[in-house]
């Protein structure tokens, strides 16, 4: 479904991603973990065709993103890290605008359904400038799902949200991911464990570990850790392999 084939990305003289190579299967929820600046957002932007790889290629359903950009973008619903939207528009107007860009049939009905799904039907005609961050994030999800994409790309979806809003959003993502392939990056390890089938850990632009949460933890046990958490796994791979505090 999603293939990263030896993808390297450089900005100026800085290598942000190096030889990134992994696959995400159809219907899978794949989480990318990594410290700040590890290259998570860059990887997602490459997947959406917002950026182009310096070398290597990214494929979605067999289509190469940098050559079949428009078709690939139609298959992807993208939630960027910042839920920035046109402040002077209402929620409904925003969805109608994006429905137009994605050629969504029966755009009005679809927009209403999305607004109901994310719990914003009552605020459909309010200006986005009056929305809280949680509401903006939910509206962003509605926008990303509007054209019923088979792939959902979420960049830190619960970042900056209060626990309640974050929980609501996680529930929504879990519902959405039942019928879609999802690639998300997050700093919240609990969220990753809760939502993702498999997790990849990025460190300094390299993919240093990939596996299910259980596989990753088991890998750490092989290094002598007892009952490691996902946090231990993360620290092990990104902090240079510290000694097992509980070992």
């Amino acid at each position, binding site marked *: 479904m999603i293939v990263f084939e030896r993808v390297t990305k450089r*900005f*100026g003289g800085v290598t942000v991603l190096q030889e990134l190579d992994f696959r995400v299967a159809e219907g899978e929820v794949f989480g990318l973990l990594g410290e700040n600046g590890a290259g998570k957002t860059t990887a997602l*932007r490459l997947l*959406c*065709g*917002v*950026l182009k790889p310096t070398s290597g290629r990214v494929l979605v359903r067999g289509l190469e993103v940098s050559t079949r*950009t*428009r078709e690939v*973008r*139609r298959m*992807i619903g*993208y939630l*960027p890290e*910042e839920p*920035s*939207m*046109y*402040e*002077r*528009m209402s929620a409904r107007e925003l969805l109608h*605008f*994006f429905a*137009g*860009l*994605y*050629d969504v049939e029966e755009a009005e009905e679809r927009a209403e359904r999305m607004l109901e799904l994310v719990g914003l039907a009552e605020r459909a005609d309010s200006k986005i400038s009056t929305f809280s961050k949680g509401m903006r994030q939910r509206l*962003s999800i509605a*926008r990303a799902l509007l054209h019923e994409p088979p792939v959902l790309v979420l960049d830190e979806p619960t970042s900056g949200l209060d626990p309640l809003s974050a929980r609501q959003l996680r529930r929504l993502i879990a519902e959405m991911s039942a019928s879609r392939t999802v690639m998300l990056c997050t700093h919240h390890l609990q969220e990753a464990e809760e939502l993702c089938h498999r997790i990849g850990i990025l460190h300094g632009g390299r993919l240093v570990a990939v596996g299910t949460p259980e596989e990753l933890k088991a890998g750490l046990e092989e290094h002598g850790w007892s009952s490691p958490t996902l946090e231990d796994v993360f620290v092990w791979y990104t902090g240079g392999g510290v000694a097992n505090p509980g070992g």
Partner: protein
Amino acid sequence: MCGTRVVVLLIRVAERELRELLGCRRYLLAFAVQTLLLLALLPAFSSLLSEGGATVPVPALRGFIPVGVVDMSGDAELLLSQLSSREELSLRFYSAVPEEELRRGKIAGYLLVPPAYRESSGGGSVVLVLGNSLKAGMLQKAVEDSVTALRSELRGRAGAYPQIEVVRKFRREVVVQVEDRRYSSFFLGYLIPLVLFFPLFMTGGAVVDATTGEKLRRTLEPLLASPLSRGEIVAGKFLALWGFTGMQCTIWLGLVMLMDIPVAEPGSVLLVLLAAAASLTASGMLLGMLAKSVKEANLALMLLYIPAFIGVLYTLTAGFFTGFSPSVLPAAAVAQAVSGGTEAWKAVLPQLGIAALSLVTCRWVLGREEVLSGSRPSAVQLLREVALGGAEAGAGVKLGLLLAPFSFTTAMLLELLAAFTMLHLLPRTVALPLLVLLSALAEEMLKLLPVALFLRWRRASAGSVLACALSSAAGFSAIETALAIAGAALLGGSFSTVAAGRFLTLSMHLLATSVAALGLMRGGCLRPALISAAVLLHSAFNIMLLGAVLWV
């Protein structure tokens, strides 16, 4: 993707932008206030200038006022010598009445000395026929002052005591009369075209908001991840901003016409204004895309708008006072179209060219990844990309050509600064040879800059380095040549002399820079020796050229 679909997408993006603009009260308020000011000011100016006799102080420029003289008496030596002594007048003698020259604005008026006029035996009357430009008022004052001076001079002499009288004849007191309204040439030929350009400079805020604002608010990312291409995003934004400015231009032109102010060719006026709006909007968008902050974008736009506005003022002033009004300039084309008779396409095509170039660059900038983080590529980074990417020789040539404008401008500034300082501080016999040497040194060093960067950034072959050096020298020389041709065109020089001189200069530049580049490639003693040889060659050429010019 089919054309219809692209058009639909463009319209959707443009519609959203336009709604954003029209939804902003401060733009609408600013537009309303400016329009109301226009409504109030135009009638006031119209009334003030309707008599056509407005006079402005005469600048003390030599030959600023061209005046025709028809001496039919042969006995007006003192009067003509008095007029010749006035610096601002440029006397042109004719054997017949120069009505055609006056009509075409070549002269501000003419002085007719009739056969009966005799300075030696009591004087007589002369006739001053004035045109309808502001210079006419200045000419009248200059002639009257001359006559007064002549009277007082003659009063002291024994015998002759001529009676000189000036008869004023305005060819046309007013240009156009509509019912009971009369409009001066200044009002129609200067003020109205100037007013029509105002809306072009009123949309800076909207341009910044749609480009820098959107970049910084990070609302671009969802658009970039949508099926829209970068070109469609740029084109959609441009259509909205251009449409907004175009709408304002149309409203202003409509208001001017509603006030019964006669605009001879409104269609041509609007066409030129829309073309100018396109180039200004597209250039503004490019600057907005490149800016890192709203503050920086506003400053950049100010640096674009102020010279553009000054350009409009200069064009209108030059056109009105000297008749120099090339239709390729939008302000000149609008002024001509207001009075009737223009070739609007001459102004339209270059403006559309600038707009297209700006939009293509804008699309390229949007494709740059730095833009997503609110940043922009630095000039050094871009140059490095040119030098490091593509075929080796091609990269060297591109680098040389890209840096040529910088090398040329910096060399000229340094040379001017050195000339200004040294001629003030040192005796000329010392300053001049030193200046020749210094300017050769500055030019050679600056032409070597791309070569030095190329060698630093890329392990290049001698052939590629030489290609880089030659392109740098050729680019430098091409700018010199363009300026020399423009100078010859403006000042009436000989093109064949310019061409011969430029050919020699180009040969010298190519030779000297190749020698210096060879020096740069070689290490050790050869480096300073070859670079010095290039500077000396350049200096010797300059001395020869200077000698040739002085000899001619």
